[in-house]
C-alpha cells in the first residue's frame, strides 16, 4: 500500500473523529425535534445519500456493460448494488430509531418507510437474479438489463407514490422551498459528515473492485493450471 493512501486514510480517520465529536458535542439540537433526536440527521442523511449514489453507479455501470461488454463493468455494477443495499439498510435503521423517538414507534408503514423497503426489494431481487444464472456473460447481461429497468421505476417508488399519501417524514434536504433550513453549526457538521462518509464509501468501493479483480484472476489462473 502506497504512502499516499496511508496518509489519505489517516486524514480520513481524523476527519471521521471530528465529525463524530461535532455531531454529538458541537452542534446544538435543532428546534421542533424532541430532545437530541435531530442529531441523527448527521448519520441518516449521508447513508441515504450514499445509497442513492451507489444505486446510480450500479445503473451507470450496467449501461456501460451493455455497451462495452467488459466484465469489469459488470463487477462494478454488482459491487455498487451490494454497497447500496448496505447503506440503504443503515438509512432504514437510523430512520427507524428517529421514528421511535419522534413518533413513539419504530415502524409505522409511513410512505417513506414503505418506499425504502421496496428499494431494498428491488436490489435484493437484482442480487437474487445474479445468483440464479450460472453462465457469467448471461448473468451480466440479464442483471444489467434488470438493473436499468428497475432504476427507471425508482423515481416512482421514491417520489411519485409517497407524494400521493401524507408522510410524517421531515422535509428532505432538497425540499420544495429550495432552501436548506439549518442553523450554521448544524450545517457545518452536516456537510462535513456527508463528505467524510462519501470518502469512506469511495474507499470501500475501491476495495470491492480490487477483491472482484483478484477473485477473477484467481479463477483464470486455476483454469489455466487445469488446462496444463
Amino acid at each position, binding site marked *: 500500500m502506497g504512502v499516499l493512501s496511508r496518509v489519505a486514510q489517516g486524514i480520513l480517520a481524523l476527519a471521521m473523529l471530528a465529525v463524530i465529536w461535532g455531531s454529538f458535542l458541537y452542534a446544538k439540537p435543532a428546534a421542533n425535534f424532541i430532545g437530541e433526536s435531530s442529531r441523527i440527521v448527521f448519520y441518516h442523511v449521508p447513508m441515504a445519500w450514499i445509497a442513492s449514489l451507489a444505486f446510480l453507479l450500479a445503473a451507470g455501470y450496467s449501461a456501460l456493460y451493455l455497451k462495452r461488454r467488459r466484465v469489469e463493468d459488470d463487477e462494478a455494477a454488482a459491487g455498487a448494488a451490494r454497497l447500496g443495499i448496505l447503506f440503504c439498510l443503515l438509512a432504514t435503521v437510523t430512520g427507524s430509531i428517529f421514528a421511535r423517538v419522534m413518533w413513539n414507534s419504530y415502524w409505522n408503514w409511513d410512505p417513506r418507510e414503505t418506499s425504502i423497503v421496496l428499494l431494498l426489494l428491488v436490489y435484493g431481487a437484482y442480487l*437474487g437474479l445474479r445468483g*440464479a444464472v450460472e453462465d457469467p456473460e448471461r448473468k451480466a447481461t440479464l442483471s444489467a438489463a434488470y438493473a436499468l429497468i428497475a432504476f427507471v421505476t425508482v423515481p416512482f417508488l421514491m417520489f*411519485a407514490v409517497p407524494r400521493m399519501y401524507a408522510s410524517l417524514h421531515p422535509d428532505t434536504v432538497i425540499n420544495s422551498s429550495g432552501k436548506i433550513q439549518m442553523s450554521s453549526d448544524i450545517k457545518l457538521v452536516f456537510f462535513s459528515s456527508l463528505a467524510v462518509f462519501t470518502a469512506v464509501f469511495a474507499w470501500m468501493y475501491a476495495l470491492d473492485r480490487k477483491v472482484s479483480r483478484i477473485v477473477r484472476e484467481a479463477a483464470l489462473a486455476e483454469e489455466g493450471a487445469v488446462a496444463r
Partner: protein
Amino acid sequence: MTGLSRSFVSEEEGGTAAPLRLTAPPAAVLLGKVLSNLVLLGVVSAFVVPLFLALMSFEIAGVPLFLAVLLFGGIGLGAASTFVAAIVAKTAAKGALFAVLATPLLLPPLVAAVTGTRIAATDPALSAGADVIRLLVAYDGVMLTAAFLLFDAVWRE
C-alpha cells in the same frame, strides 16, 4: 400473473426462440408479446372485474375514472411483466424468480390503481383522479420506452 410469466418460457424451452431471433426484428417480438399479454389481461379483466364488483356489491361512482385506471394500469402491468418474463425465461428458476423480480417493479402502478379505484368509488368526476392517471400514464411511457430500449440485450444477449 402466472400466465404472463410464461410468455417467453415456451419459446425458450421449445427451441422456437432461435428461429424467431434469426427472422424477426427484436422490437417486433417484444411488441407481439406485449400485445398478446395485454389481450390476455383484457379478457381476464372483462370477466373478473364485473364478477368481483357484483360479488362484493362494490359501487363505482366514477365509471370513466375506473375504466381509465384499468386501462393505463393494465398497460404498465403488461409491459413490465412481459419484460421480466423475457429475463426469467433465460434462467433456471423461472416461476419463483418472476415474482421476486416483478413485484417491486409492479408496486407503483398497483398502488396508484388502488388509490384511483378508491377515488372512483366515491367521486363521479374524472378529474378527481387526475394525479393517479398522470402517474399511471408516466409509468406506462417510461416502462414501454425502457423495455424497447433494453429488450434486444435480453433477447439476443
